[in-house]
């Protein structure tokens, strides 16, 4: 690995902790970010000659803090700064560092940073933009591209989020335990949104969004280290690992989505699967089921099956039943119906999805599944209707092609009978 790549990886890894600590000193996101930027530039100049410091984050914090204090002094800004006594011994930053960050500081700094980005006063779009900009360190350009927004619009989104935080007097103290649980759920939800934004990307946008699942998993790992005993965070991490393990087998050469049953399972990343399964194992011991854990368990059932026909659909049916209890939604029931059709046949599966018709009237997969079930039951005319509705709702060529194959099959069957 080239020196530059090594430095880049080290800076990225240290970023949340360094910015978190700088935020503790300055209580200003912009200033903390600038300070980190400054320290990173100095690292690029100094590390290739002097070698990397032993504690990368502590180095960046120290250098960043001094640079920012100089900045503030130069600009003559009258802002509250840490008192001189606390900073007077930090002048010579190139000497071995006196500061030792203990575990508690690290935890509080990173949590404060994540909680501020996911403040309940911010809409989800701003939470995501802020977290990717500040915690992950993606450029505004990268984030704008990933979310199909113009760069200026994304810049405005980030600025507005920062202004709202500064203006709302968002407390920089770590929240109390009750708030903490709520905010933790908000951070987890933000991370999963970032992941899905990348994971569900179609062919045309895939390159621009490729960084999102990686950043989401990095953030989840960070969160898991801060909350090592939270089964839902283990579940979230496992869920993303298990989905992402299939990333190379999900698209064909033309960039079209390949359905799970048709994927080349030898391409699945076994290391990610193993780590996902290990995390599910850890989570199960807590005996506190939650939606992320159950979804991860469902993904694990697919990951464990070496061939589609090895899939344990009965267990998947049970897991979806649990998910219906924990996080009811028509889409969950629709997914459960797929498992039911494999275990108990098309009839009960059809009965299960029929009541969903109104709520899923604009949903491609509802009509796709309904058509397939009707076709299995030999109700050709009704199946054709459902498939035609599905085609009208298809959002990708692959979806339409898939349905057209079913319609062709129906036409062939009808010709045979005549």
């Amino acid at each position: 690995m080239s020196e530059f790549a090594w430095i880049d990886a080290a800076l990225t890894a240290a970023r949340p902790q360094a910015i978190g600590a700088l935020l503790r000193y300055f209580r200003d996101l912009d200033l903390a970010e600038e300070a980190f930027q400054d320290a990173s530039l100095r690292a690029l100049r100094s590390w290739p000659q002097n070698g990397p410091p032993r504690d990368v984050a502590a180095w960046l914090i120290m250098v960043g803090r001094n640079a920012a204090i100089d900045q503030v002094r130069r600009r003559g800004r009258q802002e509250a700064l840490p008192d001189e006594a606390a900073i007077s011994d930090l002048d010579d930053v190139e000497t071995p560092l006196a500061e030792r960050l203990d575990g508690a500081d690290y935890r509080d700094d990173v949590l404060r940073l994540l909680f501020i980005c996911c403040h309940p006063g911010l809409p989800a779009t701003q939470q995501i933009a802020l977290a990717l900009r500040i915690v992950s360190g993606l450029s505004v350009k990268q984030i704008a591209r990933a979310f199909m927004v113009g760069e200026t619009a994304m810049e405005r989104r980030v600025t507005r989020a920062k202004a709202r935080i500064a203006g709302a007097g968002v407390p920089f103290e770590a929240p109390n335990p009750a708030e903490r649980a709520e905010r933790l759920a908000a951070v987890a939800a933000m991370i999963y949104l970032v992941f899905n934004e990348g994971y569900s990307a179609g062919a045309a946008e895939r390159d621009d969004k490729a960084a999102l699942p990686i950043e989401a998993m990095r953030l989840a790992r960070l969160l898991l280290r801060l909350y090592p005993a939270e089964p839902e965070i283990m579940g979230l991490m496992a869920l993303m690992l298990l989905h992402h393990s299939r990333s190379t087998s999900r698209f064909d050469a033309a960039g079209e989505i390949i359905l799970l049953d048709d994927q080349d399972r030898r391409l699945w990343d076994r290391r990610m699967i193993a780590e996902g399964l290990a995390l599910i194992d850890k989570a199960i011991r807590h005996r506190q089921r939650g939606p992320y854990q159950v979804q991860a368990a469902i993904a694990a059932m697919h990951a464990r099956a070496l061939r589609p026909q090895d899939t344990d659909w009965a267990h998947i049916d049970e897991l979806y039943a649990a998910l219906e209890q924990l996080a009811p939604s028509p889409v969950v029931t629709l997914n459960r119906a797929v498992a039911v059709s494999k275990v108990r046949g098309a009839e009960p599966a059809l009965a299960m999805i029929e009541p969903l018709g109104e709520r899923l009237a604009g949903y491609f997969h509802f009509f796709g599944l309904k058509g397939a079930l009707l076709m299995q039951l030999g109700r050709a005319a009704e199946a054709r209707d459902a498939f035609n509705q599905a085609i009208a709702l298809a959002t990708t060529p692959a979806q339409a092609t898939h349905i057209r194959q079913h319609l062709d099959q129906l036409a062939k069957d009808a010709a045979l009978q005549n």
Partner: protein
Amino acid sequence: MLYAFLCYNNEDAVFSWSQEEDDAVMRALHEVHAPLQRAGRLGPSVRLMPTTAATTLRKDCDPPLVLDGPYAETKEQLLGFYVIDCENLEAALDVAKDLAKANPGGAYEVRPLRGFAPGSLAPEAMAR
């Protein structure tokens, strides 16, 4: 004399490597491994999953205490390790508890492996 080489690094940085970067490091390491392997000097080498996959059994209390996460104290020192094939974490913790009964005090960190190579070392090597 047989030596154990314990590998330390910043996992945030290592797990930030792209597949290409990871492959490049593994290729460079392989260059070093190969002659040792051919000479029958290389024992088992393992690559561990990140610490987020770890579970720790404190065995200085009875019954032992299971904690999520890696061994995080500084008052004990690393004195040895096992690689044991177990059905799942529950089974691994059962083995750890049996070991704890035979040898109380301290802790076991139970961490799944990401990779394993048995090496080429003959069992008699210790006698040499």
